[in-house]
Every structure is written in structure tokens, then in C-alpha cells.
């Protein structure tokens, strides 16, 4: 099977002929790659060739830009670039750049033939209704904004949805991505960062505006939210979301329990990165924990949020070999 066929099969709850996909959905920390270069990984490798060199399947991701050139940046990490209606008006000319994705669309055109031939799955990412306003209000201001500027919040999400719908129309004129993610990060190690009422008031209308368009085109809709997403899954399902990643074990996410509760929901990630810091035995134990879910379909196992930089390259190679072993067992057994 081709890389793309495997991904499509798993995301449709069908068994690939040979094995599950083997991807690193979030790529690697630059620190991790630098450490591995010290340990023998070629420094000449272009980024997109790292995956196949390490024995993983290639996949292509596009993250659509939501801010154009000249847009003011935050004065400090996580800081605001606007505060209220007036300052939103001031930065509006820099937001939602109609030609911002032109380069990515051009790249999609170039890759279309290879994508059609199955060389790799393509996915795209959008700033979601929690994430995008956070990049405007700043991390702290954003959390206040639900109470301080509710009307403005709704306006921002209306503008965001309109922009994304326009850009996605352009994507679908070229090709059909296999899945997409809303970058959100709206959960943390103790669960959701906002209440269900807040989700329903602000995010649900946004998702209801954007998600049906994507699903109509056959692209699987997944939310990317770190931390413990358990409590939030029913909310996401009401919004038409079809799956989540990365399912961080360290935050307490119990994938087998989630699979039991949601037999038709898609999952990507879930492999506890902390086991990679220990040894092969710990990693095998982690694969054994995930194997029953791997067999159910609808799940692509992958590191639950980037390989830590202190994992030696040799141990990562052991991880990849084990991933291949279990990816095969999941379809054979």
C-alpha cells in the first residue's frame, strides 16, 4: 500500500494490508535534531528527508497563515498585539491575508501528482477559535476576553471563519487533503482551559460554520489540543469534530478508555514520550498498552508530543523498529 492509502484506510476504520502508518505527526524539536546530528545524523539532510531516513513515512503539512507581513508582533512571548475593538480595527489590515497562502497553494499544485499517486498524505492546519484569538489578545488577555470582550470575540471568530472558508475553497480547487487539524491547545494537564458553557457560547458557532464545509469534501477533521482532552471530547463531537491529537499520557490521557467510550472517534499520537527517556523495555510496555487500540482502527500511533532532546538517536531507532513491529502486528493479529 502507499503511504497515503494507509492513512486513508486507518482514518476510515479499515485495515491497511501491511501495517499502520508510521509518522511523527509533530516532527521534531530542533534541539533534538541538533543532538542527533552530534550522534551521527547527517547535517546535510533537508528537513523533509529526515522522516524517510529514520525509517518513517513521509507526510506533508501546510499551516495556513492567518497574519500577513507587517503585522505587529507581541512585545514578549505570549504577549498581546491588541486589546479591544479599537486596536482590533487597527491591526485588521494585517490579518486574514488573502494572498498569504499563495506559496503553499503553489506547492500543493506541484505535489498534486505525487499526492494522487499516494506518495504521501497531505494535511493542513488552521488556527482554531481558541488559539487564534490568543495570538491577538495574548495568553493572559485571551483568558479574560471571554468575560471582558464577548462581542469582539464573536466578531473575531466570524472574521476568522469567513477567511478560512475562502482559503479552503482555493485548496479544494487543487486537491483534497486527507485530514486537517485545528490548532487549539485549549486543554492542559488538568483538563479543559475553558468551561463547556464558554465553549458552547464562543467556539461551537465557529466550528459549526467551518467544519461542515471540510467534512463535505471528505477531509477528516481533527483538533490538536495538548494536555488532558478527556472531558472535552463530547463537546468536540457535538461540534462535528472527528478526532483529536496528541493525547498526552503525561497529562493522564487513557487511550484504551477513550476508545471504549468513543469507538468511532479518530486518535493520533498517544505514545508516551517519557518512556523514550527510559529504555527499550519501557517503550515496549507502552506499545503493548496501545496495541489493543491500534487493532481497532481509527488510531495512528505517534509520539504524544515530540521526542525529547535527551533521547539518543540509537534509542529513537529502536523506537522506530518497535513502531514498525507493532504497526504490522496491529493489522495481522
Amino acid at each position, binding site marked *: 500500500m502507499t503511504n497515503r492509502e494507509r492513512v486513508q484506510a486507518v482514518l476510515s476504520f479499515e485495515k491497511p494490508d501491511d501495517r499502520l502508518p508510521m509518522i511523527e505527526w509533530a516532527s521534531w524539536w530542533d534541539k533534538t535534531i541538533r543532538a542527533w546530528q552530534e550522534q551521527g545524523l547527517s547535517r546535510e539532510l533537508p528537513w523533509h528527508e529526515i522522516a524517510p531516513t529514520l525509517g518513517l513515512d513521509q507526510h506533508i503539512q501546510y499551516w495556513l497563515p492567518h497574519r500577513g507581513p507587517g503585522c505587529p508582533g507581541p512585545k514578549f512571548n505570549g504577549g498581546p498585539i491588541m486589546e479591544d475593538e479599537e486596536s482590533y480595527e487597527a491591526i485588521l489590515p494585517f490579518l486574514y491575508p488573502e494572498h498569504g497562502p499563495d506559496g503553499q497553494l503553489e506547492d500543493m499544485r506541484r505535489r498534486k501528482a505525487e499526492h494522487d499517486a499516494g506518495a504521501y498524505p497531505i494535511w493542513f492546519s488552521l488556527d482554531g477559535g481558541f488559539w487564534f484569538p490568543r495570538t491577538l489578545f495574548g*495568553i493572559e488577555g485571551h483568558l479574560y476576553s471571554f*468575560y471582558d470582550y464577548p462581542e469582539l470575540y464573536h466578531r473575531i471568530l466570524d472574521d476568522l471563519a469567513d477567511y478560512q472558508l475562502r482559503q479552503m475553497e482555493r485548496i479544494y480547487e487543487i486537491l483534497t487533503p486527507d485530514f486537517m487539524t485545528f490548532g487549539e491547545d485549549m486543554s492542559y494537564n488538568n*483538563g479543559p482551559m*475553558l468551561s463547556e458553557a464558554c465553549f458552547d457560547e464562543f467556539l461551537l458557532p465557529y466550528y459549526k460554520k467551518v467544519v461542515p464545509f471540510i467534512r463535505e469534501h471528505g477531509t477528516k477533521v481533527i483538533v490538536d489540543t495538548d494536555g488532558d482532552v478527556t472531558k472535552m471530547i463530547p463537546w468536540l463531537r457535538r461540534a462535528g469534530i472527528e478526532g483529536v491529537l496528541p493525547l498526552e499520557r503525561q497529562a493522564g490521557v487513557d487511550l484504551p478508555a477513550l476508545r471504549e467510550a468513543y469507538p468511532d472517534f479518530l486518535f493520533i499520537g498517544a505514545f508516551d514520550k517519557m518512556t523514550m527517556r527510559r529504555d527499550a523495555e519501557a517503550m515496549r510496555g507502552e506499545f503493548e498498552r496501545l496495541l489493543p487500540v491500534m487493532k481497532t482502527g481509527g488510531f495512528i500511533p505517534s509520539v504524544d508530543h515530540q521526542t525529547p532532546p535527551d533521547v539518543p538517536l540509537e534509542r529513537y531507532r529502536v523506537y522506530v523498529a518497535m513502531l514498525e513491529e507493532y504497526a504490522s502486528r496491529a493489522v495481522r493479529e
Partner: protein
Amino acid sequence: MNTELLNEISENLQRGKAKVVKELVQKAVDEGIEPDAILKEGLLSGMNVIGEKFKTNEVYVPEVLVAARAMNMGVGVLKPLLAEAGVKAEGKVCIGTVQGDLHDIGKNLVKLMFEGKGLEVVDLGTDVSPDTFVQTAIEQNCQIIACSALLTTTMGVMEEVVKKAEEAGIRDKVKIMIGGAPVDEAYCKKIGADVYTPDAASAADAAVELCRSLKAAG
């Protein structure tokens, strides 16, 4: 004492009504209620309710933030009066996100919860070196150093903080608390820190207990 008014302060604080809380606190002062009583039975009791609800996921981060903002508005009115009356904080904590780590939502939440329990907090911000934690604890007479980390790549700095505190000879006077996504109880024990808590509200409970036990030990 007008307990109805104190309850009103507490309830408005829980709803995050900062302006109302400020007005009600002023009204309570004008009615002659002791500042200490307004603080403890109006503001801190409201923040306690929020803390408990936060632990059980009945309220979430935005609700904690707006409640804490309301509390701070009320405390602003009381501060000079509390100082005049010689009311002291439950204890003093220096808190920060460890060196190499710029994530501060968790740290800020813990800070707010500490303040909601009546602790005085020295906020060192993010990317804080072990030396800064220890020097601040010494210079500002803090009973607790509270370290936060989000990244697996930075959690190791917490061990350095413990070592620096040992080298500085303050481990009998200063307790070290840790928290954040990549750490747990086992890690806390491994590095020789004193307390790990899984969430901000529990951290505040634990900090108050630590300050009381240190006080009791003299």
C-alpha cells in the same frame, strides 16, 4: 458585623465582578467592619470557593482569573488599612518558571491561588535561574520556593534549585514546591524537593500548611 455584606462581597468575587467588589469592600470599610474580617470572610472566603470549584472542574481558568482580579481590586482598598492594623500574611513565597522555560499560565494560576489564601507572593516571572530562586528566598525571607516547568527539557532545573538551596544552607528554613505538566510525585522525591501538587488550588492548600508548620516549628 454585617455578614450579609461580606457574603455579597464573596459572591460577587466568585462571579468576577471586580468593580462591584471594590465598591462593596469600600462600603464595608465605611460601615466600620474590621479590614481583617473583610479580607478573610469576604475576599478570601470567595476565593476559597473558587479554588475548591477549580479543583473539581466546576470552574475553569478564565473564571479563576476574573475572580482573582476582583479579589485584587478589593485587596487594593484594604491594603493600607491592613498595614495600619498590623495584619500579616500567612507566609511568603517566591515563585517562578524555571530557567529555559517561558511558559507562565500555570505559574500565574498558582500565584493567584497563593494570594487567594492570604500568602504574600514574590513573582520572579519566567526563565528564572536556580541562583535567583535561592537568593530571593534568602533576601526576602520567603518560607517557600515554588518552581514551575512545562517542558521535559527544563524540568531538570528544579533539581538544580534544590541543590543550590542545600549549598546555601537554607533547606531547614525554606521548603521547595514543584509543579507543571512533566513532573509528578516520584520526580519530586527523586530530586529532593518537598511538595508536588497536581493543580494550582492544591498547591495553595499545601503552601499554607507548609507555612503553618514552619511557623509552629519556630
